[in-house]
C-alpha cells in the first residue's frame, strides 16, 4: 500500500494525461495571448456601473467557442490577430503592451486598427467583437437582468402594450 501511494505510478490514468496546456486553460492560446484577449474584450465592453466583459467571463467564452465550435481558420485568425495586436501595440506605443495601455489609448488603438487597410486584422477584430457581444448578451447577468429571461415563464400574452416596460 505504502509503495503505491509513493510513486508516480499511483496516479490515476486520467491524471497521467495532464499536460501544461490542459491544466492551464485553453490549448489554443499562450498566457500573453490570453491576457491580451481579456483586455481586448474588456475594452469592447468595459466595466461600468454594471459588470463588463472580464467579470462576466467573456474571454473564457470566446476561447471556448473558437476552440470547440469554430474551424481552424477562425482559430488561426484569433491566434494570429492576438500576436499582431501585441506586436503593433508595442511598436505604436514605444514598448507598451496592449494591456499596459490606459483605457483611452486602448480605444484609440483599436479604432485605428479597425480603420486600417489590413483585411486579416479587420477579420480578427470583427471576430473578437462579435464574440464579445455574444458572450456578454448570452451571460447569466444579461439574460436575467436585461433580457428578463425566465426558464419557466408559465404564460404567453399575445397583445401587450409596449409601454408596460420590460
Amino acid at each position, binding site marked *: 500500500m505504502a509503495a503505491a501511494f509513493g510513486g508516480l505510478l499511483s496516479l490515476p490514468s486520467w491524471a497521467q494525461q495532464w499536460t501544461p496546456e490542459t491544466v492551464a486553460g485553453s490549448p489554443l492560446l499562450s498566457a500573453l495571448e490570453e491576457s491580451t484577449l481579456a483586455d481586448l474584450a474588456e*475594452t*469592447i*465592453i*468595459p466595466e*461600468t456601473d*454594471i459588470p*463588463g466583459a472580464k467579470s462576466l467571463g467573456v474571454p473564457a*467564452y470566446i476561447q*471556448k*467557442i473558437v476552440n*470547440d*465550435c*469554430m*474551424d481552424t481558420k477562425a482559430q488561426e485568425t484569433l491566434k494570429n490577430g492576438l500576436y499582431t495586436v501585441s506586436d503593433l501595440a508595442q511598436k505604436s506605443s514605444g514598448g507598451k503592451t496592449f494591456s499596459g495601455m490606459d*483605457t483611452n489609448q486602448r*480605444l484609440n488603438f*483599436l*479604432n485605428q486598427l479597425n480603420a486600417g487597410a489590413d483585411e486579416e486584422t479587420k477579420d480578427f477584430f470583427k471576430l473578437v*467583437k462579435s464574440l464579445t*457581444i455574444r458572450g*456578454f*448578451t*448570452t*451571460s*447569466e447577468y*444579461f*439574460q436575467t437582468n*436585461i433580457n428578463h*429571461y425566465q*426558464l*419557466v*415563464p*408559465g*404564460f*404567453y*400574452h*399575445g*397583445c*401587450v*402594450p*409596449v*409601454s408596460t416596460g*420590460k
Partner: protein
Amino acid sequence: MTILESTAANQYDAIVVGSGISGGWAAKELTKHGLRTLVLERGRDVKHVTDYPTGMMSPWEFEHRTQLPLEIKEANPIVSKCYAFYEGSTHFFVKDAEHPYVQEKPFDWIRGYQVGGKSLLWARQTQRWSDFDFEGPARDGFAVDWPIRYADIAPWYSYVEKFAGISGNKDGLPNLPDGEFQKPHEMNCVEDYFQKQIASKYKDRNVIQGRCAHLTEPKDIHFQQGRAQCQHRTICERGCPFGGYFSSNASTIPWAAKTGKMTLRPHSVVHSIIYDEKKGKATGVRVIDANTKKMTEYYARIIFVNAAALNTNLVLLNSTSNRFPNGLGNDSGVLGKYVAFHNYRATISAEYDGFLDMKTEGRRPNSPYIPRFRNVHKQETNFLRGYAAGFNAGRGTYTNQDGIGADLKKNLMNPSWGGWHVGSHMMGETIPKENSTVQLDPNKKDPFGIPQLAINMFYDDNDEKMIKDFHEQFTEMYTAAGFKNIRTRDSKQAPGLDIHEMGGVRMGKDPKTSMLNKWNQLHACKNVFVTDGASMTSTSTQNPSLTYMALTARAVDYAVKEMKKQNL
C-alpha cells in the same frame, strides 16, 4: 452473435416492438386488458424527469451556451440538419454513425433510439384527419383506397385526445374535424389580424390556432398520470419535467408500468419476427441485446410492430421464412413500396408595420395553422392534393452594435423594438409511388449484423407544382393583408427532415395491393399488427402522430376482442 437462447420464461401474451408514440399506446392499451406485455426498445431507458439531464438548465449553463461543438457537427452531417438538434438535445438523437443506412437518393433520416423514441422530440401538432383525407386516394386515383373512413376512427381520436391532452379551438371546419380540446393557446395581435383579413377575403381559407398536445387545462386523468399544466418553456425537446406535453415517457409508458403487466426491455434491437409455418402464425421475435450482441427469442400470442415507419419496414423485410421469402406478410409484394412523406421545402416571410404599440410576453409552444384549402371539394389545380401551413407572427428587438466601449455597452443594454415579422411554412402531401421504396441492402450490414436499409424517396413534379402554388397563394394572401417585404424561399432540403416518413406497410381493402387490413392487421399473418407510420396508405396534409395513437388504440381493442374469441 451467439446461439439462440429460448425458454418458457420468455413467453408473454403480447410483444410491442418500439416504445415511441404508437408503441407507448400499444403498451398502455394491452396492459389495460391484463395482457402480460413485453415492450422492446432498441435504445436505453429514459425515465420521466430523472433522465432529462438538460431539462432544467438555463441557456448560460451549457458549456457552449447551447451551440453545437464543431466535432459533433462534422461527425453528424445528417442529424445536424435537424432544427431541434443542439447542445441541449443531442442525447435524444441517433448519431449518424450509430445506425448507418444507404441513401439511394438523399434522405435525412432523423431518429430517436430510447424509451419514448421521438415522442420526446416531436413538434406536438395534433390535427385530426378528415374524410377528405381518407377518401383522397379513391377520389383522386393515387395509392389505394383506405379501408377506413373518418367515422371508423373518430371515437378513437376522442379516446386518445382525452388521455393525451390536446389544446385547440372548436373551429367547425369540415376538412379539419374538431376534437376533445382544452383551451387554446393565445394568438397575438398580428396573427389575430391576419385571421380576420383572410376570413373577410376568402370563403374557404381559415387561419386557426394550432391544435397541440399540451395540457392547458389538465384534468383528473392527467393529474393521475403525474402531469401538470404546460409551463410555456418551449424547450420541449429536452424532455418536459412537468409532463406539460404528451410523451410516452410522461404518459403511456408509466401508465402501462403501473398495471404491473409490462416488462420493458431497453437495449433490445429487434432482428426479425419468428413465423411458425405449422401454426401459420407469428410466434415471437428475435432480439439482439445491444450491449452483449447476444440473440434471444421472445414469444407471444400477438405482436405489435411500432418501430417507427422505416424501421418497421426493415423488421418485416428482415423477417423471412419459407412461407414469406420476401418479408413477413408480403404476398402482395408491396412491402417497402409506396413510402411517402411531407413536403416542408417552401417558406414565406414578410414584415408588418402595424401594431407597433403592441408586443408579446412569455413564450408559446404552438402557433396558428392554415388547413388545406386546395383541391378539397374538387380538383381545381394542375397538381394532386394540397398543403397545410403553419403561420406565426412575432416581434423582436433591435440593437445598435456600432462602435466599442461604454457607448456600445449602453446600446446593448437598451434594445429597441423592431417591427413585426411573419412567416409560414408549407406541409404538403406527397404522393405515395410504387418506386418510392425502402429495401434491404444486399451487401451492407449495420453494427448488429442486420442488413442496412436502402432508402429511395424523392420529390416529383407534383411536389414542385405544389411549392410554386404555395408561394403564389401565400404571396397573394400576405399582400392582401398588407404585409411588406415578402420573401419566398425553397430550402431544397432532402426528404427526411420533415420527420413524417410514412407507408411501406400500407393499409388497404385488397390483400393483393396492401399489407394490412382495416384493423392494422397483416392480411397474411393475423396475429401481427402494425400501427405506426408504416401503416399509412397516404399522407394527408395534417400531422400524423395523433392518427397513429388513435389507430393503435383501435387496433388493440380489436386484437383483444379477437383473442377472447380465440381467433388469434
